[in-house]
């Protein structure tokens, strides 16, 4: 079993009539970078606040290093938070902001000073100790907030959309810095964002939250390539939702399905007659003359949209449905609109995100 530092067990939380969290359980491993990803209102900030102790769950427990801390006040917990809007103390300078936690822990002055200097060095703000927060730029405030939370060497660092307020370029730079900081210090990060690119970029594991439920928990690869719910598939990347009926299953687990007047193949287990929803990433869809995967599906090229590095093509299927394909832009010759093409994809690259019996309604 892997070394779990933080256990989130069956957390429920309700605000008035809104269910913010509906039974979320996650085990966070020591030293990992875990991202909670979801649209706004999915409950991710509430979950973070419950871990920090700023909010109390209606049900469920929080275990930190195996200890039940659910009812502990936030100041007793060995977790620190980087707040969304930084929450720097406006009446203290940078040094006093960072040393605040140390002063509370009665760390001797000399040592506190040394550790603050180290932290400033670490976040590349050496020499900024005497500035007031109001004199710093957004990115600098961000670094101070991180330094302030890290200086107490928490078991887990909680980050609530810490890069949300920064512009794109600075955000990319800070992503890299944060990631390397985390690797160097070996501190467990629980990171919240609604930005999928950020999540895929930085995380060891990603948990997708939706309507207060954990939709999927896995590595960025897992999440992207093998989504297990419709929401997970649609929230990250671009997918075609393919609704198909199972015709047949051969012994090695390859399904044949009826789709849009033709047949397609997919990896997976299912009973003949079952209706499946497959998620197929747009970049996985191929069209042309090739028929190597044994698909019997054809369509016509309806339109091309050129978006810089990408060429997005819409294919029209015989029954009127459309598929989106993305490919490299550049100088490749485009297939003329109206051309009849054969459509296929690697059966291993589709993921079953929903299944139901033939009679069931969607």
């Amino acid at each position, binding site marked *: 079993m892997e070394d779990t530092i933080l256990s989130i067990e069956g957390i429920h939380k309700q605000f008035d009539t809104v269910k913010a969290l509906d039974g979320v359980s996650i085990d966070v491993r020591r030293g990992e970078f875990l991202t909670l990803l979801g649209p706004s209102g999915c409950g991710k900030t509430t979950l973070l606040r419950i871990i*920090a*102790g*700023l909010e109390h769950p209606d049900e469920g427990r929080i275990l930190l290093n195996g200890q039940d801390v659910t009812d502990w*006040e*936030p*100041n007793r917990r060995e*977790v*620190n*938070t980087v*707040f*969304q*809007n930084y*929450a*720097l*103390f*406006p*009446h203290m300078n940078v040094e006093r902001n960072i040393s*605040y*936690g140390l002063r*509370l*822990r009665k760390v001797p002055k000399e040592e506190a000073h040394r550790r603050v200097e180290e932290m400033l060095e670490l976040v590349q703000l050496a020499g900024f100790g005497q500035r*007031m927060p109001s*004199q710093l730029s957004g990115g600098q405030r961000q670094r101070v907030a991180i330094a*302030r*939370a890290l200086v*107490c060497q928490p078991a887990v660092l909680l980050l609530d959309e810490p890069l949300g307020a920064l512009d794109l370029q600075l955000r990319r730079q800070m992503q890299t810095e944060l990631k390397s900081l985390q690797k160097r210090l070996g501190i467990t990060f629980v990171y919240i964002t609604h930005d999928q690119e950020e999540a895929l970029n930085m995380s060891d594991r990603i948990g997708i939250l939706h309507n207060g439920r954990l939709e999927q928990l896995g590595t960025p690869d897992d999440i992207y390539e093998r989504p297990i719910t419709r929401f997970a598939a649609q929230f990250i990347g671009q997918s075609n939702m393919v609704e198909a009926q199972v015709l047949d299953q051969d012994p090695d687990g390859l399904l044949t399905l009826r789709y849009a007047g033709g047949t397609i193949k997919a990896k997976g287990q299912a009973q003949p007659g079952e209706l499946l929803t497959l998620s197929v990433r747009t970049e996985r869809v191929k069209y042309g003359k090739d028929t190597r995967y044994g698909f019997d599906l054809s369509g016509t090229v309806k339109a091309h949209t050129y978006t810089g590095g990408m060429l997005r093509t819409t294919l029209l299927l015989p029954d009127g449905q459309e598929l989106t394909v993305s490919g490299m832009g550049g100088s490749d010759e485009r297939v003329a609109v109206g051309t009849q093409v054969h459509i296929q994809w690697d059966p291993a690259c589709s993921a079953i995100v929903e299944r139901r019996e033939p009679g069931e309604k969607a």
Partner: protein
Amino acid sequence: MKKLGKWLPRLYVAVLLAIMYLPILVVVIYSFNDTKLFQWEGFTLDWYRKLMTNRVIGQAFWNSVKLAVLSSGAAAVLGTVGAIGMSQSHFKTKGLLENVSIIPIMIPEIILGMAYLAFFTYLQIPFGMVTLVIAHTAFCIPYIYLNVKARLAGLDPSIGEAALDLGASRTRMFWDITLPMIFPAVASGTLLAFAMSMDDVVISFFATGPQVTTLPLHIYSMLKMGVTPEINALCTIMLGVVFLGAALLRLLRASRKAQQ
């Protein structure tokens, strides 16, 4: 035409300000007037000299200062702690209780004045400094309460939470974070309350007894009986102090800005 459009508004502001200062100016000039009458008779500092030796005015003045310090001080504590407490409270009648707390500055003063006269008479509390302080504290609280409340509402709650998160207890958070951040609101509310207490006629009129008089009450009775220009002198001094204070405050602010 364009020029007129720019200067006419300024002229209006200036003229109205001038009219507002006219009576004040008259008081200042008359404080140097060598007669009790209403004509100008020549420059004198007599009234200032007389003021210095006038025991009654001096007593009234110190009563007023004492009263204002005590009541605005008590109100500062009650109002500040009250505003913080209320901001953390959630109960059904909160809105109602809050409105009752600020009633003293929402209704004509005379109602509260009469209420105190009746109430203290009924309780047989002797009228004097004690009743004055109680009455003044009651109408000072709303100034501080509302100021602090507005400031608290404008505070980012995550700043306090950050302190908790870094290991501060709730008490510690209050002293380290909340209090320094709401201090400007406490200060300005208390100053306003102090000014209102120093200037109050109506409530003091009902809430005091024969032994204790405040400066405004003394001036009121003098205005009814016949004036001595010592009052002009006293007001000129007060005006000077206020202007000096305001100027100092501006300078202080300017230099602080320059520092940053």
